[in-house]
């Protein structure tokens, strides 16, 4: 891009400012996680690692984390399967109502979480409860998967659209049947997109609180629900900050790896 020196500088400043704004609250969270005071009030009163130690020892926290991971993995798995199937159909076939499919896929993430949540809740109660199936982890997974499908769909179909069909045709031409072609040619080509989609889907599920509230069963507490509860509990605020700080630090690595892997060979500059 041909920019004047001033324009370049302005953009750099804007980006720096944007990133500062993105990280300032996170810094506050981090500082509060080592803040001797129990409340979040500013400025901090002293330094302590006490809350990190406390967090480390909380079985409820660990259980919630594990529940969230299971819910995230379940929702991601469903989203990967359904999202990529829909992506293949939408990019490799022309059919009546193709537009409607992408519209339908996007609806669950675009409609307010509370609408999705109470709709699922009402439906589960009408349909599942009479069958003797209660709310639990599986209902959470169903709820999350519903709005995660679209992110896999979008990632995979963007990749497929840019992927020339000639690769798959070459494979068929060389004698590979449909399933061999998928395994040997298509899958390697969309692996990065699947990964990126999976990561985003997992992140969405991992952070979802509203839909979870309305779909979780009695014994099912995900991390956001735990956070929600604990923000309202005595003395737990700092521990919540510890959890958030740890998540930020832990998340940077997989996010970075995913970005590396999802950049196609000779990717765009």
């Amino acid at each position: 891009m041909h920019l004047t020196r001033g324009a370049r500088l302005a953009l750099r400043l804007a980006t720096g400012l944007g990133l500062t704004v993105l990280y300032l609250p996170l810094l506050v969270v981090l500082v509060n996680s080592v803040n001797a005071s129990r409340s979040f009030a500013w400025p901090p009163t002293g330094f302590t690692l006490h809350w990190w130690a406390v967090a480390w020892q909380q079985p409820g926290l660990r259980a919630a984390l594990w529940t969230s991971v299971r819910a995230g993995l379940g929702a991601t798995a469903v989203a990967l399967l359904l999202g990529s199937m829909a992506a293949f159909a939408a990019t490799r076939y022309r059919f009546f109502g193709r537009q409607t499919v992408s519209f339908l896929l996007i609806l669950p993430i675009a409609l307010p979480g509370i609408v999705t949540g109470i709709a699922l809740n009402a439906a589960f109660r009408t349909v599942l409860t009479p069958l003797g199936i209660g709310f639990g982890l599986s209902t959470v997974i169903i709820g999350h998967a519903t709005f995660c499908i679209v992110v896999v769909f979008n990632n995979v179909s963007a990749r497929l659209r840019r992927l020339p069909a000639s690769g798959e045709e070459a494979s068929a031409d060389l004698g590979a049947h449909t399933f061999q072609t998928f395994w040997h040619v298509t899958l390697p080509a969309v692996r990065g997109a699947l990964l990126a989609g999976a990561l985003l889907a997992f992140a969405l599920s991992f952070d979802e609180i509203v839909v979870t509230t309305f779909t979780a069963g009695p014994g099912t507490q995900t991390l956001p629900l735990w956070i929600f509860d604990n923000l309202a509990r005595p003395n737990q605020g700092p521990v919540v900050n510890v959890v958030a700080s740890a998540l930020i630090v832990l998340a940077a690595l997989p996010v970075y790896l995913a970005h590396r892997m999802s950049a196609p060979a000779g990717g765009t500059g």
Partner: protein
Amino acid sequence: MTGDSTGDGTGDSAPAAVALRAVTKVFGTARAVDGVDLDIRAGEFFSMLGPSGSGKTTLLRLIAGFDQPSAGRVLLGGRDVTRLAPFDRQVNTVFQDYALFPHLTVRRNIEYGLRVRRVPRPERAARVAEALDTVRLADLADRRPAELSGGQRQRVAVARALVNRPPVLLLDEPLGALDLTLRLAMQLELRRIQRTSGITFVLVTHDQDEALTMSDRIAVLNAGRIEQVGGPAEVYEHPATPFVAGFVGTANLLRGEQAAHVFGAPGSWAVRPERIRLLRPDEASGPQELRATGRIADVVYAGPHSRFAVDLDTGGRLVALRQNLDDTGPAHPVGSSVTLAWRRDHSIALRD
């Protein structure tokens, strides 16, 4: 792979390597291919030549099985394959963009067809090594496509198809992306490989030079139909239609009045630029020759030859080509008068 051996014979009685019967392909409302009948003989180097959008790629895709004809049948070695998937057909394709698998090395690319057809490992290795030799890429076997030049990629694409020993090899403008020097070298290479392997080659190109120099026979396509099929000299010297005359070489087309003046009869007439002699002022034309006078409108030096555009006194323009054999010939500066002559039997009468 089934062991059928048709397509290896070259006799006329053997079934055609590829036969198209009344093949039509419609996209939406557009007829990309329109009632094509064609027999491609086993072992020949066959080209399909035509302008952009004339349906060349579509025809190739119908033969390979990537698309299904809207009507008509496709036969390979006498067997009707119209409804077969590409992976069940005995043809291989070299794609215009090569379509190499970016995540596989050269060796694994070439091996691909054998692997998916479960050819045993030792045989696989031997055939891949042979194919690598044929295209002279043994040194680069462990590179990825991204690390190769255009010409090298093209050769990998050829080897990847050839290693399967298909009776028929389809090539969709395989040389389009290469620069001239490389293109000429690859033309020689492909011709050599075709001769030594005996495989039927079906080449799609819009480059008339390429088609003329490489092919045993050429089909000229226009708007989804075949205008003419024949050997290079036949197509070039005796174009059946004005379209063929114009598309394969410079047509020098005169019609109606203008044609009557020069050729002695109305209708559409053509004469190839290289057939026309520029006479020296004192020079007489031969007894078998037609002649026409005019004025030089443009002279273009093109290295091996020069082109002279001549505005005829009786109307119309003819281009004459003169090999730069010698630079002592008479100069024909722009604006000077000139007399053109060509053998009567080099006049081409065209049906419209």
